[in-house]
């Protein structure tokens, strides 16, 4: 995946959340975005997902030169997958229907095929026995895994994860991270906003550190975590590992 961001700026009511973000990455398969809460990392991801419009700046991901008009964004969103912190399965339909509905309606795949596809994904992630349950009958980890299966079923070009495990307890977190790691092994490109530093370090090739609306530091994950250069990153990591 190639990512090229130029002069990206976004503010909410005079509060600059992203302040002139610039980055140029080539052939990245997995990218972690880390940083303190409120630093702008989720906003960046939401802009990359086409859910939020920047005030100015250009974004190019692979061949997508993202134009922020509804028509362009509709096509763009169809081709990428976004996973949210709160899973966001539709509550009124079963787990499997959550997967087949966008397949049938958005991607015009016939019912039989959509069902088959959904079933095989659920099976692969050991979720088949939950396929007819509604989301409120599933655990947080199961919900998130169904949501990931849904994104995978759509055959997206790449996947975006917005803190996919921050609402889960440690055990379920592992469950979901394992699943995400599986995707990575299949060379599914992904961008991940996360608080799981271990995962960012070991499972992601490249890491960006964002604080106060700016990219403070970026580099190969191993390097970022073993020899941080900026004092902000040093302080951030120092605080995190205080109790380790």
């Amino acid at each position, binding site marked *: 995946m190639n990512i090229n961001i130029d002069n990206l700026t976004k503010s909410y009511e005079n509060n600059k959340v992203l302040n002139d973000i610039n980055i140029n990455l080539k052939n990245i398969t997995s990218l972690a975005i880390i940083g303190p809460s409120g630093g702008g990392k989720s906003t960046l991801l939401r802009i990359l*997902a*086409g*859910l939020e419009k920047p005030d100015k700046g250009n974004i190019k991901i692979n061949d997508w030169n993202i134009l922020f008009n509804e028509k362009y964004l*509709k096509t763009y*969103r*169809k081709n990428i997958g*976004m996973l*949210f912190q*709160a899973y*966001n399965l*539709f*509550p*009124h*339909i*079963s787990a499997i*229907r959550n997967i087949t*509905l*966008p397949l049938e*309606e*958005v*991607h015009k795949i016939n019912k039989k095929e959509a069902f088959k596809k959904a079933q095989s994904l659920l099976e692969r992630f050991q979720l088949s026995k939950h396929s007819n349950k*509604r989301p409120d009958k599933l655990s947080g980890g199961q919900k998130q895994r169904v949501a990931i299966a*849904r994104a995978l079923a*759509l055959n997206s070009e790449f996947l975006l994860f917005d803190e996919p495990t921050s609402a889960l307890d440690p055990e379920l977190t592992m469950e979901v991270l394992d699943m995400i790691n599986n995707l990575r092994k299949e060379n599914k490109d992904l961008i991940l906003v996360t608080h799981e530093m271990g995962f960012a370090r070991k499972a992601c090739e490249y890491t960006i550190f964002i604080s106060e609306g700016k990219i403070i530091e970026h580099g190969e994950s191993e390097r970022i975590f073993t020899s941080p250069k900026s004092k902000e990153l040093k302080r951030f990591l120092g605080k995190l590992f205080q109790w380790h």
Partner: protein
Amino acid sequence: MEIEESINKTNNKEGLFKRLFISDSENISTKKRLFNGLLIFLLLVFVFIFSIEKIGYDMRWGAVFKYKHKFILGFKMTFLLSFFSLFTSLIIGSFFTVASRSKFLPLYYLYRFYVAMIRGTPFLVQIYVFFYVIGTAFNLTNRYIMGIIILSLFSGAYVTEIIRSGIEGISKSQLETSDSLGFNTYQKYRYIIIPQVIKKITPPLAGQFLSLVKDSSLLSVIAVNELTKNIQEADSLNFASIENYLLLAGLYMIITIPLSYLSKLLERKFSYEY
């Protein structure tokens, strides 16, 4: 021994009380339902009969029966008025819900004024204004069609607010997810919003439709020949007021009880078991 026996006795007593009156599970037995339902029904009937006896009122059902054609005529009319107004108010309510969410400001303000005026003024005033001022000015003089329009406009304001609040109850994150999955606006409403909204608004909507049936009685003031008006006329002839109005209540219930039963059915149908 004695103490034990008395404990047993109270236990038995409590056991009987519990068996007869206390709801203990999801599935209360039909016998238990029937028993408790009948108990309350008979109690109410008793209070009523006792009161009638006490004031020494002499029921004359024969005098009511004499005017049965009026009751039948009125019942039919009320039924038809309610039936058409129910659908029309649903259409009006849906239209103003769209208006309430419109980015086109004139439409949005039309919604604001409509709801504020209808909900903020007495229905009686609205009937007079619509019929005698607007109706006369625009030469709309058919009282039945005007009756349906007026009743629907009145009820529609409440329906609007019910549907609107139902839609607003759908979390923003669900709409965002639909966007990120690539749903277009039609698909978003058809598959995500409307199924959830229908379930959510069925109970308050049923309440609103019950009110609509009863509110139709006020149309008697513009001489719409509905149930209440017919009974008032019968009353001025046979002077059997209590009998007339009791029957009136019963006739309204013939419409309202199936309506609330229907809403329960709908609610169950749209409960999330697919």
